[in-house]
């Protein structure tokens, strides 16, 4: 089922890009222009995705296909948690800076993924502190990278 959906997504992507490429300006001094190469790619991509869709449709039993979001969530809970934290991390970094956001992300994600055990707070806390402060000072001093400091340290 997933492969079928990916096949359909590939097909949609090729159609969108093909149409978009048609709007690109043409070049007077070169025959292909900016649209030629992408159009060649998506034509082949479109054809291949149709093949994939047909192949998967042949084998699929639609009566068995059911989307139960609750089951999916339970099965992939850890991935959802991590992705949400990851998105929050990227979003927060701009606001509260690299050090604080990295600490929160590493600490919180370890906490949510790991076993419930009070003894481990110290361990995961030190790891989060080491990663956030260690990488900040290492990269700043050694590579001269300026990480966002955020509202707390301005």
């Amino acid at each position, binding site marked *: 089922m997933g492969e079928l959906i990916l096949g359909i997504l590939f097909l949609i992507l090729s159609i969108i890009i093909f149409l978009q490429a048609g709007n*690109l300006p043409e070049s007077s001094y070169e025959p292909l*222009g*900016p649209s030629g190469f*992408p159009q060649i*790619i998506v034509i082949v991509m479109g054809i291949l995705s149709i093949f994939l869709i047909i192949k998967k449709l042949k084998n699929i039993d639609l009566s068995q296909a059911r989307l139960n979001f609750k089951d999916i969530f339970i099965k992939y809970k850890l991935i959802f948690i991590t992705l949400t934290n990851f998105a929050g991390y990227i979003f927060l970094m701009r606001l509260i800076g690299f050090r604080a956001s990295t600490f929160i992300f590493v600490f919180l994600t370890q906490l949510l993924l790991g076993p419930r055990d009070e003894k481990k707070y110290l361990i995961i806390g030190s790891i989060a502190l080491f990663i956030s402060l260690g*990488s900040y000072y290492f990269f700043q001093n050694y590579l001269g990278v300026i990480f966002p400091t955020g509202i707390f340290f301005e």
Partner: protein
Amino acid sequence: MIDMFILGIEQILQFNLLFNMFLGVLAGIIAGAIPGFTITMAIILTLPFTFAMSPTVGIATMLGVFVGGLSGGLITAALLGIPGTPSAVATTFDAFPMVKNGQPGRALGIGIWASFFGSLISMVLLITLAPQVANLAMKIGPWEYFSLIMFALTIIASITGDSVIKGLLAGLLGLLIATVGLDPLSGSARFTFGIDFLEAGVPFLTVLIGIFAVSRLLSELENKEEVKQGEELVSGKIKFEIFTSLKEVLSQPVNLIRSSLLGALIGAIPGAGASIANILAYDQAKKGSKHPENFGTGIPDGIIASEAGNNSTAGGGLIPMIALGIPGSAVSAVMLAALQIHGINPGPMLIINNPEIVGTIFVGFFIATIFMLLIQFWGARLFLKITNIPKYILVPTVMSLCVIGSYLLNNRFSDLYILFVMGVIGYFLKKYNFSLAPVILGVILGPIAETNLRRAMMTSSDWTLFFTRPISLGFLILGLLSIMYSIWQNFSVKKKSKIS
């Protein structure tokens, strides 16, 4: 040639370089030893650390990770029966039984020496062949270059993964990602969909980290129980008999040389990397053996074949990268990206324009191999402890390193959004068995392919030249053959499995 070596030795003999390279080998071995972590991922994560280094130091460090990573898979393959990387699958066949027979030191010792000699033999091949191939490549025009890239892409897409269609789709997706942003020739913005930051394009390092590392980390979280604890450790002492295992390896010169040459050759073919080489070398060793029935019971022959086979792909894989500027595998694609980040353009002119880089690669390869040998014998026991770190600690930690790596390249927040999206795309592709290597190669080769295609069409608008120029036609035919061969192979595998 000799000048290049002298230059290479001059570059290598700096404390700073040797120290970084040593750390690289160490990091590579550790990463290779952790099941689920690939060598590609280790090299990608090392890349940001090399930004501030000079090109030679940076390349030497990455080379260290590469050589170390290839041998790191041996530790878990032998002691736990789990290949740390796909390139050590065949190592488990004989090394693990040997460990179970109570000889962990012997299994590791033989594996380490076989890795060492495999690397050495492939280095000799690299040094002799790369300049010759580069000489040939200087004579080809944009038509041939475009066709060569198409050939490389088709073979990569068709060899890797379980389906030719999916492999090709992944490669095309990579080519398409590379077209986002300003067009290199005309300067018009393509496929930005009104998002301003996309005008700067999609940086390939971010795609690399997202597609390979973030997606991999997410997949590691699928099994909830495994996340909470690390892998089981082998308890007890491991005793090395360094010279006895050296003797055992050297007592099988035919097996050693055959496996190494096979590995180097497979490494040089785009798409076929260490993950194929170890199995093929093992298979050949078994077929050529007087006692094939003993394979799989814990005999040295199998370990030698697999480890020499996978380590020798390193040198082989560098041949097309140095001589043609075309990466043979995801790993060499990252090495290529590293050179580009340091402002060096790999390709036929590399040997002439930057002999010090090529010299460093040649000599550095040798030094890295020696470091690998020392570190492995000294620390194999310690590395096992690292595999015991549970995933719930590893995943968030490495993920934050992915963020740092992506941010470092351009100091841009927008790259982090791209990283997130690429991670999710990579995860879904991986989940549904699309191989990820073609995506990366597409992203890296896309701009080269497009520029050469358009340059060819600007020189002459006659597109039949791609088919009438013999070398160009040859590459295109080879590409077609590789696709047809894979389709045929898929069919015959399915037929066989139906019959059985």
